[in-house]
């Protein structure tokens, strides 16, 4: 009887392990399926024309996604330029002045901001920027994306800086380097790849965002480099084309998805490589 009880327990153990492995493997299935379908439907669309042409009117074949590619690049640039310095500075504060009251509230604010749904940020930027300026613009779209990038950059900076050994800071201070120079010229460069990781992750996240752009960047059938005018973006193009009934537009959407997913995956892999290099340093 003891034996059968033991056998049962061993069987449960084996079964449990099998189930865990099975479920874990199964959870990889969606990713594989998504990449598979995107490749299968989209790879064929990736011709040279696809990347350099503008979209054509409804009902005509051909056309490309050039304005969406440029638009996404423009939006990310507008988002990154203010957010990176601001985010790094705030991250420095959160790390160096941990004990202060503002640090507590700022950390809380960062957490709340990170969890805020992107559609709510779209509403906010619409009422703050679009209505007062009087027009949809790449600028407002970039601002919405910038607000979304901030929490990730701040957290990335804060966590990176916290990992740097105190000894470095103390050594520099002991040599007479002023405090601000220590941070700027010693600590920051040491944590550069970690901070860069945070920046890249936030770019990857934000390049694929659609919701906040719906009410801000607005979309554009033409190429646009003017930040004060509306601009098209990859995710918006995918959304508009995917929900249309035209097979040529579906084809373009699959191709655009290929590009977007490829971009995000590449970004993720580069982050992985950078993290590995950085982790070895200390």
């Amino acid at each position, binding site marked *: 009887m003891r034996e059968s009880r033991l056998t049962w327990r061993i069987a449960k153990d084996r079964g449990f392990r099998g189930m865990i492995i099975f479920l874990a493997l199964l959870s990889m299935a969606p990713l594989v399926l998504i990449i598979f379908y995107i490749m299968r439907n989209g790879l064929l669309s990736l011709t040279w024309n696809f990347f350099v042409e503008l979209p054509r009117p*409804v*009902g005509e074949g051909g056309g490309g996604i050039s304005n969406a590619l440029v638009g996404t690049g423009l939006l990310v640039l*507008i988002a990154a330029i203010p957010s990176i310095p601001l985010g790094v500075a705030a991250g420095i504060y959160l790390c160096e002045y941990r004990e202060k009251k503002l640090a507590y509230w700022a950390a809380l604010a960062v957490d709340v901001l990170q969890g805020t749904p992107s559609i709510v940020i779209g509403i906010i930027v619409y009422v703050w920027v679009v209505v007062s300026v*009087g027009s949809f613009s790449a600028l407002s779209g970039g601002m919405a994306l910038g607000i979304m990038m901030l929490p990730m950059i701040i957290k990335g900076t804060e966590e990176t800086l916290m990992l740097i050994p105190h000894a470095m800071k103390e050594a520099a201070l002991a040599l007479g380097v002023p405090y601000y120079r220590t941070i700027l010229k010693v600590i920051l460069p040491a944590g550069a790849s970690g901070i860069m990781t945070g920046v890249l992750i936030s770019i990857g996240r934000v390049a694929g965002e659609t919701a906040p752009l719906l009410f801000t960047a607005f*979309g554009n059938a033409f190429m646009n480099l*003017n930040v004060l005018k*509306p601009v098209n973006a990859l995710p918006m193009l995918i959304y508009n084309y995917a929900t249309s009934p*035209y097979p040529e537009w579906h084809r373009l959407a699959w191709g655009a998805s290929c590009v977007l997913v490829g971009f995000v995956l590449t970004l993720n892999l580069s982050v992985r490589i950078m993290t590995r290099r950085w982790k070895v340093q200390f």
Partner: protein
Amino acid sequence: MLLTCFFLLLCLFTCPATRAGSMELIGAGATFPYPLYSKLFYVYWQQTGTKINYQAIGSGGGQRQLVNMTVDFGCSDAFMSDEALRTAPAEILHVPTCLGAVAVTYNLPGNPQLRFTPDIIADIFLGKVARWNEPRIIAANPGQNLPDQDIAVVHRSEGSGTTFVFTDYLRKVSDAWEKRVGRGKAVNWPVGLGSKGNPGVAGVIKYFPGAIGYVELGYALLNDMPVALIRNKAGRFVRPDPKTTSIAADIPLPEDTRVTLTDTDAPLGYPISSFTWLLVFKDQAYRGRSEAKGKALTGALWWMIHEGQQYAEPLHYAPLSPEARKKAENIIRAMSYYGSPIHP
């Protein structure tokens, strides 16, 4: 590093100055005429270099963005109500650009050609008629093999002029509809799925067996989807096409052309037809707009109601009747810049 940031910022913000060259206009609104407008604006760009960026976000959106002054013109198949015009910041004009038909399209095996009477349509969208092989539908379609299948109603999920036209028709032909739902750009649908834009609705119906919905005619035909013949006021079963749409508009028009054409008296007319309008402010000197912009807008509008009309029929829209065009010309002529007319 700071220096490069500074230079980048400089470049970004001098961009507006360097791009003084080509004129750009922004418009937003209905998906109803989108296939036509995307063609028109593409041709116009090739001919004149003026870029007109039109985003089809729905008629409600078109009206709202114009009132907010975030776009140069709005587009709507539902004319603005008197109250909306009263509360607008300045006087708004409706310029009719073409006519379109709201078709009832569906997805059944074999794409049969169906006929509907007004009461059947109203009851389907009210949820009272729930299956395809219901006696009334069979009675109206003798000889058709209707499956024993649920009817899946598809409607618009956002504020839409197409919905306005369709519900305007339904409330004229069904008291129950008037009482329960009413007319509007976005209504409280008793049944059905919502989808975004005319393209969204057509997209759902195309891939969904048993579905039925209302879309602008062009969307159904461009996708090889069947459209129903509908019995009009005179008792004829009419097919939606540019001719029957034009006939439905063959009625006396008010000066501002704000009128619905549904349930038309014209004996050969299609009962769910409508104008589609471009909405602009009468005086273009608002928010510091330049006279050049006002000129560009009136020029584009003038082109649309004249040379642009040739592109309507191939895309299944109806060109303006001579009388409608004359009224449209008068309205464009009324547009001014600080009081002086732009396009005399």
